[in-house]
């Protein structure tokens, strides 16, 4: 290749350690800021705003968010490795370290885009076949038959005010009139119009500030339904954790519409046989958590497993962790398992080994000259 080709020039510029220096500086500022902010707005919100974002708006000025900064650093590292690396034997430690860092960043990219995590809540004696995402919502159209829900779901990104949701398998369309991530329900003061049906006849909602504690947020939506029939078409209101779901009759079948955290179906069921929480004696401090479960397959076969703190269950590409325990007034015990699916899971392990080998080699090669007397 021509040594002054534009590609090479761009590549070499992008590989400069000075860029890394400035990027690191900015990243440190983001980190500090975001960490302090999470006291006020909660961990998840701080993460969304400072670390997972492309742009961080400082008043009206757009600045690179955490994701943008890390992408830039990855580019910088890639260019360094491809355009500006030295293969001198004394520098082999640095080379290996850089490769390890790239591996770590690569794993980070995979995790950022492909990881899903959520909670599987199951009572003793119950079997659950899905887990619910911690954060993402979905608008689900559900028809039930023989104990199986058939679902058409619209993902979080599409649930914005003004969006029109339709799908070939549904003879109706939903126009999102108002969507809010945290609402409170209040009784109507004014009378409902003819077009306002369902809960909207007596209630309305008001959007609230997002609660730093994720679990305390209740999302709500007001929408206009069109395409069914005169009696059912109209405006409706739904929200998370509705006691009585909003149902419609579609071509003779009953379909209910739910606003909920996204459901991830599993290819297996988790049957909770027993959950146990031990406390340190004489205190309220938890000492150990443990759930005895059956992993149930569609054909009915069951495999007994134990899930405890620091000892998760890995199966089918998922990892299930024991996170919470609950007991209600009736004495019914509930186990909450965190479920994670992450293709990028092994990258940190591999990269940490590589990075440490790299730094060690570098140290071994250079420490004598750095520490030796005069």
């Amino acid at each position, binding site marked *: 290749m021509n040594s002054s080709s534009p590609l090479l020039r761009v590549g070499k510029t992008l590989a400069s350690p000075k860029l890394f220096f400035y990027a*690191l500086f900015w990243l440190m500022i983001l980190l500090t800021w975001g960490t302090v902010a999470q006291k006020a707005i909660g*961990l998840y919100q701080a993460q969304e705003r400072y670390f997972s974002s492309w742009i961080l708006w400082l008043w009206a000025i757009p600045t690179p968010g955490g994701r943008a900064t890390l992408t830039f650093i990855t580019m910088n590292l890639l260019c360094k490795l491809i355009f500006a690396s030295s293969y001198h034997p004394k520098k082999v430690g640095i080379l290996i370290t850089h490769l390890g860092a790239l591996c770590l960043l690569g794993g980070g990219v995979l995790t950022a885009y492909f990881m899903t995590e959520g909670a599987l809540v199951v009572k003793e004696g119950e079997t659950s076949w899905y887990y619910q995402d911690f954060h993402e919502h979905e608008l689900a159209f559900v028809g039930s038959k023989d104990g199986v829900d058939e679902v058409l779901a619209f993902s979080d990104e599409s649930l914005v005010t003004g969006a029109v949701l339709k799908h070939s398998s549904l003879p109706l369309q939903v126009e999102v009139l108002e969507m809010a991530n945290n609402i409170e329900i209040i009784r109507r003061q004014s009378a409902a119009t003819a077009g306002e049906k369902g809960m909207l006849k007596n209630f309305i909602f008001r959007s609230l500030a997002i609660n730093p504690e994720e679990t305390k947020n209740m999302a709500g939506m007001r929408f206009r339904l069109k395409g069914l029939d005169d009696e059912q078409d109209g405006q409706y209101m739904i929200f998370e954790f509705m006691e009585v779901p909003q149902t419609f009759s579609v071509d003779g079948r009953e379909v209910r519409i739910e606003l909920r955290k996204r459901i991830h179906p599993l290819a297996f069921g988790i049957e909770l046989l027993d959950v146990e929480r031990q406390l340190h004696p004489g205190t309220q401090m938890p000492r150990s958590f443990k759930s005895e479960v059956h992993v149930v397959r569609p054909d009915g076969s069951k495999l007994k497993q134990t899930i405890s703190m620091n000892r998760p269950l890995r199966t089918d590409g998922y990892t299930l962790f024991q996170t919470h325990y609950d007991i209600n007034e009736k004495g019914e015990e509930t186990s909450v398992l965190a*479920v*994670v699916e992450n293709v990028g899971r092994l990258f*940190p392990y591999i990269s*940490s080994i590589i990075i*440490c080998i790299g730094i060690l080699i570098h*140290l071994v090669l250079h420490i004598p000259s750095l520490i030796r*007397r005069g």
Partner: protein
Amino acid sequence: MTSKNFSLMIGLFLLAFAGQLFAEKPSQVFESLVIQEGGRLKPLDTYARNQLLAVHQKSTIDGESAIDWLIDLMLEPELHYHRPEFKLREPELIDALGIEIKKDSRYAFAELRDGMSNVREDLHAWFQKDADSRSPVEDRVIRLYGLLTQYYQLSRSMSLFHRDIVIEHEDLAKDFKLKPGEKVSYLHFFTHSDQLRNEVTLLSQMKKESRGEREKALVELVALLSEKIQDEMPPQLTIFPPLVGSEEEWVSPWVLMGKEKATPLILERLVDLQGMVDGLKQGDLKAALDLSNKFKESVGFRPKVDMEVSNNQADLFYRSMYCYIFSIILLMVSWMVWPRGLRRAAFWIMTLGMVVHGVGIVLRMFIMGRPPVSTLYESIIFVGFIGVLICFILEVVRRNGIGTFCGTTLGILLHFIGFSYAADGDTMGMLVAVLDSNFWLATHVVTITMGYGVTVVAGIVGHLYLFLAIFRPGDKKGLQEIYKNGVGLSLVALLFTTLGTILGGIWADQSWGRFWGWDPKENGALLIVLWLLMLLHGRISGLVKPVGFAAGLVLGNIIVALAWFGVNLLAVGLHNYGFTESIAINLAIFCGIETLLALVGYAWASKRAEVNLESPKMTE
């Protein structure tokens, strides 16, 4: 220093340590009894220290050791209620209780209790409030209330052994196997509880008119005993292991009597305790000690309790700090007179301090059965040790006193911080479920605290570089050496902090399913890694010159301090009056000083460097 003088010094030190080991003391009767508290079994000695710390902010009071104080409190409670044992330094609190403020901040239980009754109405209302909506003063009053209750109940824990009941009536006394006028304790009536019950039943069936002197005396006796039970069964002194198999909670003497029927084993243990109390009160130490050994053997469950008592009493960390202090004094004198000899002596004293320091850590590990760094307190002690160790190595290689200077400074500073944390309570506490994993404690936590230690040592080297660059800018060789040391240390620091941070992520992945959660603690550790990376890449790219690099190392200390302590403050919030507030203030002062030193050092040293020739350029 001649070897004879040196051996003499060592000998003196050892004597000081050993001196305590051989005399028989009253405290030995109770100090190594096992008590279950905070989820673990510990010696009564540790428990006494923690209780005294809570009341008096120190683990000794007026020359008396904690265990002596505790036993005395339980045996002679009334005397203690009027002794000014509580140390309270918040004037708003004292004001709120309507008590006169004392100059020495010391108050007696009785006056505090009276003060509490002044605010009794308000207290009730404050209890109902949500914890967050209470004002700091209300919060403090409520906590003091809890402390006073704890103190009172503790003081009454052994009241069943007090010989303060007397039956004058001859017949009644005989029926209870006593001599009239003989002083006896409540326990005696527990051992004769069936008889007492019969007597009371008979009494209730008698008509009032037919009651005679004996019955009157019985009524008085029963009234006295009922009054004793008003002590509300103090639950604190949990020195009796569970008698029923699966229950794991230990019980106190009063609770034991309330729960169980008088089986021979229970009676025997209670009677032994009575004997120990009697022995102490009458000065018959030997009898008391014999019974104490018998009691301990009967109860069993002695998980390294004796070792813990010795460890408490050896106060190894204090002694190690004294060594460091002595060493730095010697070093400073060596700058004026007899340089070589005193410098060597200083080095060896520091080494002794380091060994004692290390032994202390190993003992803790052994007693708790965990790796050395599982709490913030332990991390302080551990980083101190690592820092001194690195400086030890540095001194061995360089032999110019710098290592000794840095090591002793670091050792003294961190011990000092550690003591203020130790004053907060039991430093050997249990861990929450998620932290209780020896493998990760050994790998991640140890690695990252080592990283902190090395970074701080690098920070000290940075200080040294700036100092030298300001006052001896002509010493090119010296500057270059120190610079090289700094770079080397920063690389080692990078290794440990990076490895430690990644291990932390792997631990999180294993426990909760996500490698990185942008959690404050994780972010703090990452900040140190990023800072080190920044300095190193700044150096490589030419943006950062040696003076800048040195200043950067100094600023690294601030980042370590914030990641280490600041993160905890963020979580707890400054709402926690008192202790955390003082940490926050000290942290702010430390950061302020370091920033000032870094900036001033940088500016001044750069100026001096300009005047001299161009600074040394490092090649890799």
